[in-house]
């Protein structure tokens, strides 16, 4: 059997494979977001490809700049729609449907044991559902669309054993930031990560998605949670039952390295500015004045994240002069937040709620930063210029920390604002 990566890639290669081998694999799924669809179509055309190998396995997602911010973006959206129809591509999630990775897990577009690609680095998120998900560039995505195949090296695996429970006020984002602080941005390059232990068993699908999402910031090729009762419950709701294609933990699997992290010992963390591994406990950071708070992204834009933030914002107002943007990760998240009354809380507090999708995360629309501004974001990246001006500073933190900081106007430990939060599950 081997590691989850070995199990899944063996099936995709139709032969038993081990870490280190270079293999040709068949993609179960291959997706493209709107920021890369133009390049993929361009490559296919230049390569003379008129028919795609397996359109039933493919999907397009309008998330990075939807609704379109420029004429060029709108033109790309229109061309993508035509292409999807001509080629019979199975899925086109249009403006407002949400972020690809969120939709993939939410709607069960991917399942445990599958090999899924997407022209986006945060495809590692899909590992929360026991799927080997990894990013590809546009050229190799076009190759998969043309042939159904691609080369891969079977990665070695880091096993990260999470123990215990997070204290109230902390969540999976604090785990990600702690790992980045301890391991840096290179520890998992070319490697897969598996999250094991009672600590991960106690986390829900949303928190697992956050963990697997930011594994790419550690450099990982894929990150997976072995399917368990939480996975089964998630897929049962979608009418999908466990079968023998789901990978399982093999006690004889060989891990390159095993790390342990006691969740109970963690504190709220913040990363930034300008580097994801510049991480400190929030109480050790010199707290600058904040101009924009951003709650959203494939890292932390789920209903669980919105609930946490709403509990802090309920009955409070944003700090004077601060704006807060709330961008649900998907239409389903947006609807749930409406039904639960969270949208009223956000609007009463003074927040802006935008169309679901990536929003301000990549600096493409819906909330850019001006020169010299400071942002606290629930996203995953903070390079200079990521959300607008190169002279702006971005801090990354959990949804609770984002909301607490939006209330005070400075980086704030969410545990200092009542009510204390239950651990996100």
């Amino acid at each position, binding site marked *: 059997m081997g590691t989850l990566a070995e199990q899944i890639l063996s099936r995709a290669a139709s032969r038993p494979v081990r870490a280190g081998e270079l293999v040709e694999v068949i993609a179960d799924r291959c997706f493209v977001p709107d920021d890369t669809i133009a390049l993929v179509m361009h490559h296919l055309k230049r390569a003379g490809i008129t028919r795609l190998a397996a359109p039933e396995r493919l999907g397009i997602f309008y998330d990075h700049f939807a609704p379109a911010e420029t004429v060029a973006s709108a033109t790309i959206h229109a061309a993508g729609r035509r292409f999807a129809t001509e080629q019979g591509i199975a899925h086109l999630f249009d403006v407002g449907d949400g972020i690809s990775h969120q939709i993939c897990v939410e709607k069960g577009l991917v399942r445990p044991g599958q090999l899924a690609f997407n022209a986006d680095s945060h495809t590692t998120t899909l590992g929360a559902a026991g799927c080997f998900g990894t990013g590809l*560039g*546009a050229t190799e995505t076009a190759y998969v669309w043309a*042939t159904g195949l691609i080369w891969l090296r079977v990665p070695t695996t880091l096993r990260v054993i999470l123990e215990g429970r997070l204290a109230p006020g902390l969540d999976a984002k604090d785990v990600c930031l702690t790992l980045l602080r301890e391991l840096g941005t*290179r520890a998992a*390059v070319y490697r897969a990560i598996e999250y094991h232990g009672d600590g991960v068993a106690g986390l829900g699908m949303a928190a697992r998605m956050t963990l697997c999402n930011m594994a790419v*910031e550690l450099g990982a090729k894929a990150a997976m949670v072995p399917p368990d009762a939480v996975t089964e419950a998630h897929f049962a709701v979608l009418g999908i039952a466990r079968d023998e294609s789901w990978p399982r933990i093999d006690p004889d699997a060989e891990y390159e390295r095993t790390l342990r992290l006691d969740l109970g010992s963690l504190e709220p963390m913040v990363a930034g500015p300008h580097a994801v591994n510049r991480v400190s406990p929030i109480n050790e950071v010199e707290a600058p004045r904040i101009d924009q708070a951003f709650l959203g992204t494939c890292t932390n834009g789920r209903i669980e994240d919105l609930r946490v933030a709403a509990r802090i914002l309920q009955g409070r107002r944003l700090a004077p002069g601060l704006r807060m943007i709330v961008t649900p990760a998907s239409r389903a998240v947006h609807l749930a937040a409406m039904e639960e009354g969270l949208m009223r809380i956000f609007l009463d507090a003074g927040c802006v709620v935008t169309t679901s999708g990536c929003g301000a995360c990549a600096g493409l629309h819906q909330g850019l930063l001006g020169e010299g501004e400071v942002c606290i974001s629930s996203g995953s990246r903070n*390079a200079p210029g990521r959300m607008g001006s190169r002279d702006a500073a971005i801090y990354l933190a959990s949804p609770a920390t984002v909301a607490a900081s939006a209330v005070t106007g400075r980086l704030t430990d969410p545990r200092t604002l009542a009510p204390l939060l239950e651990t996100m599950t």
Partner: protein
Amino acid sequence: MILSGTAVVIGDEVNSDLLYPARHMGIPDPAMQATHALTGLGPEWPGRVATHRVLVAGWNLGGGSAREEAVTALQGAGVRLVVARSFSRLFFRNCINNGLAAVACEALPALDTGATLTADLAEGWLDCAGARFAVPALPDSLLEILRHGGLLAQLRAAA
């Protein structure tokens, strides 16, 4: 497969947001992309890259985003060889699959812009500033992709 040229040198942890900011995605022509190459580091960088055939970087070149413009914009600017202490997986794949030679050399010394480098990807060595370093040779299947000028060019040739 031997490549040679003078280098423009950048530092550690230059990620894909810095190599090619997301707002310039959607431009298919590498020559046009080149006007935005490395602009995450500052507006002067496209001009700096343009006069060299080799890009030299430190650890973890190209981390973060999957965007291949981080690679193809360099090609558009005339870069033919990228040497780094280490690469992110996506950047390395994007190099090979777009036909840009990439060499990882952990022992790479500190170099100044203008230094001459030569690499043989099939034999696995790198010459820089008079010193020779052994580097991992590329597997044949990846050399084949490079010889064709990229994965899609290889596919066209096979058709």
